[in-house]
């Protein structure tokens, strides 16, 4: 339905953009690489968050937990394993924990789900703090550093994979099933959808990418403690970014992450004393004038239609 040429054009553009990105380290100044790496991290977090939370409409505030677990994985394994293995381990740890959290949250939906996941991630933060203090006998840990280029490539791969996964899931029957679950778990169950398995599986998949992002970004932290690794603000970021970008489109969350990270960076460096003031005003203005987020402004209220693919 996008017309005969449009999908091809899009594909061409995406390949082109990816190629430009992949070759970035060869010609771009170091700081662009730096900014893009950070943007890619937020893109990953936001897009992977939307894998589960987008279609179901359940707002998870446990992102910091999976991200932090990835970071801790890198801190524990960083010196003994090669970088890609560390990132994968971070992802798997995120996945495993995602299954656990998904299982615990099964009976919850809506606002209760949101606050519960937040409470859970605070519980994890305090528990790790307690564990590190009383069992490991330490609080801070060193993370083995990597170069910008390496961090950039791992995040490029992770971000691309998460975008691809989000796209495929969204366009598949699974995405539709998740939407159905978000609308009415009971009806979905009676239509033959295994709600338990779907909820856990897709929550875990999004945690997988968050864990990988954490492991890949860990090098940026150098020295971690539970308070910095499980920073509760990380949990809110994907929510803000995807709502800001517009959750109804594939590219909404990407756009939101891209633009908000970019705006932050500009404000943090150009208006350091008024960062949150301006940031806050931008939020309010965007909400007042673009209630559908940025993506809503850029195109009309187009809906995905599975039947036509």
């Amino acid at each position, binding site marked *: 339905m996008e017309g005969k040429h449009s999908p091809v054009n899009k594909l061409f553009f995406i390949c082109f953009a990816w190629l430009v990105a992949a070759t970035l380290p060869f010609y771009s100044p170091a700081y662009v690489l730096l900014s893009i790496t950070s943007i890619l991290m937020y893109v990953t977090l936001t897009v992977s968050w939307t894998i589960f939370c987008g279609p179901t409409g359940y707002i998870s505030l446990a992102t910091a937990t999976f991200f932090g677990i990835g970071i801790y994985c890198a801190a524990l394994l960083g010196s003994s394993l090669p970088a890609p293995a560390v990132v994968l381990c971070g992802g798997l740890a995120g996945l495993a924990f995602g299954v656990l959290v998904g299982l615990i949250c099964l009976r919850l939906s809506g606002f*209760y789900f949101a606050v519960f996941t937040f*409470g*859970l991630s605070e519980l994890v933060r305090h528990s790790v703090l307690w564990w590190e*203090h009383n069992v490991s006998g330490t609080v801070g840990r060193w993370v083995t550093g990597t170069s910008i280029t390496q961090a950039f490539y791992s995040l490029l791969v992770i971000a691309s994979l998460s975008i691809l996964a989000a796209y495929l899931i969204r366009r598949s029957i699974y995405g539709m099933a998740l939407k159905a679950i978000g609308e009415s778990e009971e009806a979905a169950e009676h239509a033959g959808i295994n709600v338990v398995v779907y909820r856990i599986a897709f929550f875990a998949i999004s945690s997988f990418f968050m864990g990988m992002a954490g492991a890949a970004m860990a090098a940026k932290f150098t020295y971690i403690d539970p308070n910095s690794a499980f920073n509760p603000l990380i949990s809110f970021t994907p929510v803000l970014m995807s709502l800001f970008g517009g959750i109804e489109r594939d590219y909404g969350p990407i756009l939101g992450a891209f633009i908000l990270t970019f705006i932050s960076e500009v404000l943090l460096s150009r208006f350091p004393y008024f960062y949150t003031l301006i940031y806050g*005003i931008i939020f309010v203005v965007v909400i*007042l004038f673009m209630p559908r987020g940025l993506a809503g402004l850029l195109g009309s209220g187009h809906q995905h239609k599975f039947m036509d693919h």
Partner: protein
Amino acid sequence: MKLFLDIIISGLIQGAIYGLIAVGLNLQYGVARVLNVAHGEFVMVGAFATYIMYTVFGINPLLSVAFFSPVSLIAGFLIYKNLFQFIRTSSETAEMFEGNSMLASFGLLYVIQNLALIWWGTSTKAYSYLSFSVGFLGVAFEANRVAALFVGVAVMISFYLFLRYSILGKAIRAAAESPVSAQLSGIDVHRVLGICFGLGVMLACVAGGLVSMMKEITANMGFPYLVTALIVLVLGGLGNIVGSFLGGLIIGLVTAAVMYWQPELSLVASYLIFTIVLLIRPQGIFVRQTNGR
């Protein structure tokens, strides 16, 4: 026995504060559907206002709390009228309004925080009011905390009576249950929801004023109160005003009790209680579960 009394009373004191803040959030989210993440910032504003009134003008904190109540109510009402009502009309669905109003309140949070940093940036303040202990059955309590408990409970009781028996209170409850049918029965829903939001801000400011007697005051003191309020809100059940207050007391009691045995775990314990309660009763403690779902 003394220990028991001690834990109960100090738990109740802290719990009453949490309860007040959570009830405020409950009015804003449970009734007006605005998940106001800037709620904690109003606690901070209330605390600073009370501090300034006391140190600059020598006004009794409890008096300034009484004075600030209507002021903050009006301020909250205006915020709703000028910001959230606009969002409500521009949003197509209830979910969209919830998402957008949360985003806007994040904006509010950022703006208030930055202004506070500009005004009070480097200050950590405290003042002494009723800073002596009172004995009760052989246990010593801080007078200002006991006063806070009395004020907190008094505010809650009058609030409850207001909701239950006044016409406006009935309108609020009607709007909470079904905005549409409330509108049909001739209630100006926007005005009622605006008042709910204003009342939420008021309760946060009152709690802030009380907190200022017991704690230090800084520009970034607000956020933790939001977190606690969210947890208490869920514990007590959305839309359940009494539940929120009781939920606050529970969290206060748990924290106080664990603070005696294993202080390091006091926060872990409150989160743990929250997690366990929600696992057993997914709709909060004080909500009657319906058949099926």
